[in-house]
């Protein structure tokens, strides 16, 4: 399964939790706003970390979607089983 992680900059308030959870793919700028540097996590563990980052963002700024642009969530489990 290919998934993509994105940060909606209009929602990001610089809590920086995404960079802790999905450290391999998110960098923080000088103010602490997250910027995705690797948007396509590979492997179960990495995808899971991306999903945790999305779940942990207090502003819902981190979004993980499948190849058909459907949103996948950690708790609810997506159409493909998460």
């Amino acid at each position, binding site marked *: 399964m290919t998934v993509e992680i994105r940060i909606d*900059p*209009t929602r*990001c308030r610089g809590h920086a939790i995404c960079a802790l959870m999905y450290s391999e793919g998110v960098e923080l*700028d000088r103010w602490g706003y997250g910027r995705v540097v690797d948007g396509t996590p590979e492997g179960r563990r990495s995808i899971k970390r991306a999903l945790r980052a999305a779940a942990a963002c207090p502003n819902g700024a981190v979004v993980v979607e499948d190849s058909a642009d459907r949103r996948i969530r950690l708790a609810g489990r997506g159409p493909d089983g998460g």
Partner: protein
Amino acid sequence: MIDATLRGVRSTNAAPVHRIGDIGDEGTWLLAGPSADQGPEALSSHLTRLGSLRPFECAGEYRTMLRQSGLRGRGGGGFPLAAKLDTAMLAPGEPMVVINASESEPASRKDWTLSAYRPHLVLDGGAVIAAVVGSSEVVIHLHRGAGAPVASLQRAIAERRSAGLPDPRWRLSLGPDGYVSGEASAIVSLLGGGEARPSFSAVPMAHRGPSGRPTVVSNAETTAHVGLLVRTGPHAWGAAGSPSSPGPQLVTLAGGAIDPGRVVEIAGEATIGEVLSATGHRQPPTAVLVGGYAGTWISGWAAWNTTFQREGLEAHGAGPGCGLLGVLPEGHCGLAETARLVGYLAGETAGQCGPCVQGLPLLADGCRALAAGTLRRRGLRRLLSLADVVEGGGACRHPDGAVRLIRSALDGFADDVAGHLRGEACSGAQRPPVFPLPEVDPSDRVWR
């Protein structure tokens, strides 16, 4: 009335012929017809001049013509319109069609000129786009501020209704003023009941807009070209441009131009020098600002022989943008103008994305310090690294535009930069501003 001095034909036969004309001039494309003092063109005059359209019967044919034309958006983005329409047609749901006539660019007047004087050409284009993508309604979006061409568009819609033209439903939408409120995703957010602020999406709006429906937003000039090129055929229309910028184009003169706010049409490939000569300039100015207030500076000498088309401008890292051609006259300081423009852009943030909210005011401070001669080498390095951080950090291209303007200023006014960094007095920086900025009181700012 034809102003003979506006016609410039290159002296050598080998060079392509171009034509520069005002509204009402014979031989122009979008601007042909009655002169400006006759007000909005009536439907009867419009149909006598250009003939009627059959958008529903000919939708397939029109779609082919739009594809063949290579028409690119004239609002600033320059995206091929046919590709937008194809995306919208493939996506599920009835597409939403929006004509963006808001013209948020403070000094630009071309969309206003078309909406005020050639409303039927704009509406024809809207009817064609709606028929091609299968949409029953077209929204025409304007800023509600003073001077919006509401009356002309309303009258034109009423004329078409009583004439029984095969039109979609028209809906005039008036949104808040402000630079980013005219951005496509901001308009569509507003139309969907939200605020007129840009939104973030990974999928193109033409596939799925903020409302959930495929959404085609087409600039007013782009839309007027649609109304025209389905009549003239895409090839004749395209030949009035260049291979990478097919079709004629509208240019608004701004800043220190002899007649700021004047809109001229270029048919064929004209250099910036030819456009300026046709509008009364005798020699290259210090610099030109191309594409908008968040555009690119090009030194006057370099610009003079550069065509105002994509291929010419790209060599200078610029693009036609919304067609703005600003003039920085002799003796004025480009760094001081840049500082004012960046200050304006910083104040026009939608206040959503961190890099824009945090970064633009700092960039503006840096530019002001540079203009004032108080910035030193280390400060300039900080300014440049800040620009790198800000670029690409927003949901829309607003911060990127400010960064582009700053980089082109540092590059184009390199000698001035060196003098300012040494703290040398700059007489040009004391002069009154060349590029007028809208007076904005932040407490009056509304997003609906």
